[in-house]
């Protein structure tokens, strides 16, 4: 499942970059993220609680920054998380791009999400919509935080 989300941040690019690269802080912008801590080497560990209809998931996993180029304003992240109770997992890659436009910064996130295991049988279209919503909230929250700082 591929998504693209954009948000305009009322802040210069360098400031937004710093904000986004502070992964534990940025991750708190994802609704349902309980904890994120650095585990070294550009990797982070965390938990995401999410409810899709009657299905309650607690996804445990890792997040890694797989590429970062501050000059270009681009970064790539990879997240892998698993719910052992339900027997489902998600994998996501996110490509972030920041572009400055007249004092504001445009944030673009292209993400590719895979929902695996039994979880995937609970209506992929519904999951897709939920994931879309989650990513949109994330982008908007990042924009809000960066604007506010």
């Amino acid at each position, binding site marked *: *499942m591929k998504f693209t989300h954009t948000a305009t941040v009322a802040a210069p690019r360098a400031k937004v970059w710093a904000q986004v690269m502070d992964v534990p802080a940025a991750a708190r912008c994802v609704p349902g993220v309980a904890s994120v801590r650095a585990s070294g080497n550009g990797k982070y560990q965390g938990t995401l609680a999410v409810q899709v209809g009657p299905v309650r998931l607690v996804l445990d996993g890792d997040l890694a920054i797989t590429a970062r180029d501050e000059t270009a304003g681009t970064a790539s992240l990879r997240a892998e998380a698993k719910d*052992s109770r339900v*027997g489902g*997992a998600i*994998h996501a890659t996110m490509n972030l791009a920041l572009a400055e436009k007249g004092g504001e910064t445009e944030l673009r996130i292209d993400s590719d999400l*895979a929902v*695996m*295991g039994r979880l*995937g*049988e609970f209506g*992929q*279209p519904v999951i897709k919509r939920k994931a879309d919503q989650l990513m949109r909230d994330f982008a908007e929250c990042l924009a809000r935080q960066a604007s506010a700082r």
Partner: protein
Amino acid sequence: MPGAPGFRPVTNVADRTASVLGDPEYRVEGRDKVTGAARYAADVAMPGMLHVAFVASPYAHARIVAIDVSDARALPGVRAVITGEDTKPARLGRRLQDWPVLCWDRVLFIGDRVAAIAADSAAIAEDAARRVRVEYEELPAVLDADAARGPQAPVLHPDASSYRYFGGDRPSIPHPNLQAYAVHRHGDVDAGFRAAHRVYSHTFTVPRTHQAYIEPRAALVWLDGEVLHVVTTNKAPFALRQQMAASLGIAEANIVVDAGHIGGDFGGKGLSLDEFALAYLARASGRPVRSVTRYADDMQATNTRHAATIALTTAVDADGRILAHTSRVVFDGGAYAAGKPVATLLPGDAMLTLAGYRVPAASVEAMSVYTNQVPAGHSRAPGQPQNAFAAESHIDLVARSLGIDPLVMRERNVVRPGDIDITGAPWHGTDGAEVLARLRTAAHYAEARTTPHSLGAPAIGSGVALGVRHVGRGRASMVLRLSRGRVELRTGVADQGGGAYTLFQRIVATELGIPLGRVTVTRGATDAVPNDPGVGGSRVTPVQGGAALDAARKLRVRLAELGRALADAGDLEVIGEASQETHDASMYAYALRVLVDVETGSTKVEHATLVADVGTVINPVALRGQLEGGFVFGLGQALMEELRLEDGRVTNPSFADYKIPTIADVPPLQVELITGDPGPGPFGAKSVGELANPAVGAAVANAVQDAVGVRVWSLPITAEKIWAELTRPDEVREVAGSAED
């Protein structure tokens, strides 16, 4: 649904059936099937039996880095856990064994198996499966058959040369990601194109579909000393014995395969998967082990009908006569070729891209491609629904462009005995002109073409399409025993519903001139009966039926030699054998009337007429059922069936979302039989099991164009596709419609 008020049978077989017996047909296994006594594989249980769950890949393409089964093994009630390390290098398959029993280095599609668990209950086994931790390194997935053939595409089977291929040398392939490749040429193609009045090119696509049998796959395996016993839903038990023996390194004599009643096959149940891993689990646990596939897994990870792209180019003269034809068919074979039983490793009728017509010159290229998608195997009339949809849409488009009535176009080109057809050989089979003449009359074609449309009502359209299918070939044998005046036929044919046992009973009784009640038919496992090629390839009536007839004849000859009557001949046993290698084929044709709701695109087939050349009818009820069932099978593929895949994952893996027709969705069907042209089977019988389904898609597409003027180029012909064509701006539609040169 339109129809006269009150009860009315919705089909009407014209009373021209010439049964070899006046007696009504009464299924020999009928009583068992209507009382619940008939045993299917999932009904068989053993004391101490364990239940199985598999761990499957969530990735379309990945390297297995590590597997940790310790948590699974520690769960109370778990009796055995195996991984690819325990089964390597065992691979399974019907002709080419390229599918790992369990993967050990890489997984090639979502659902590919990496571990198997046997436990006291299915719930424990599933729980244990969730506790297996597999670390994967994801690899780039090849999801597209065109990309797979590119120079940069990762090679999915680098060790292909080491795979076992049954029966000779594997045909060579020009690209490592091809499963199969074949070309055919006959006649002077260039001359045909030079002489052409017009040349037409069209491209069509057909999606993956599932056989949608109601019974999910099931298997029960146990070891009795050295002997491995297998209860299976496989419709070709002797072939499975051979495959297992080769794959597992066990002598065939030490494997007993028992296939009882099979709850629907439609080609899919020729390939077995679980049986192989179960053999390892039975050995590891020392217990009988049974697996019953969850239907969602059956749809995600077994073998589907091939998705295909079919490009056809045909040169015609001013009267629409075919001068030359070229075609290219690309089948998406998915991760493994294991499901295909034929020597070419293509879907059976992959090369028949303009079947049923005189084709003086042709150049046909077909291939099946490895991708990281659900594997594709055989499915009722393999290769034909794809090719028939393309060819019969193509012929209609050519006719319309030339201003020729679509039925007239077919009448001008249809094969008659002796004509060169798409195979380059003289047509040996149905007189196509007779089939079309019968269709014209039976469907009241002239009247149907001039029915006026009334304002505001759905648009009405008629469509025709024809199809051909070879009469089954092969060898078979069975035993006929006479004891105390009763005869017993012992066969290895599994029952997947076509009515084989009743057929054999009627053949033997007719040949011996005795009442049906004096002939019993019994089925045996592979250790109890002579080798049998299994059900498939439209084989049962001409081949196994032929063996039954041969057995009865031999018994009759023996009795004559002994000068005895059946009742006082004592005990006798003969072996009947048949070898049917005649290249004979049948033809059928449809005329459909559809109603299209122009605001929504929703299409209903309002009435269907099927004319089929069936030769001599032995089982009138079963024959009719095969044709009627074949039509509705085709109707599902025409209007609604499609395994929807996203990044290699089936997103509609259940009957809630993968819809097949219900009783409320089938239109009145009139069936007309041509019985006067004898075939190579017993008493002049032919094959019908795969005779009716492939042409339905094109008949619907042609009727839709007749009704609303738009062409749907892919199956299924959904309401939305028609709506999209109807609402497309005119200039764009013209470009799509004028695909001719």
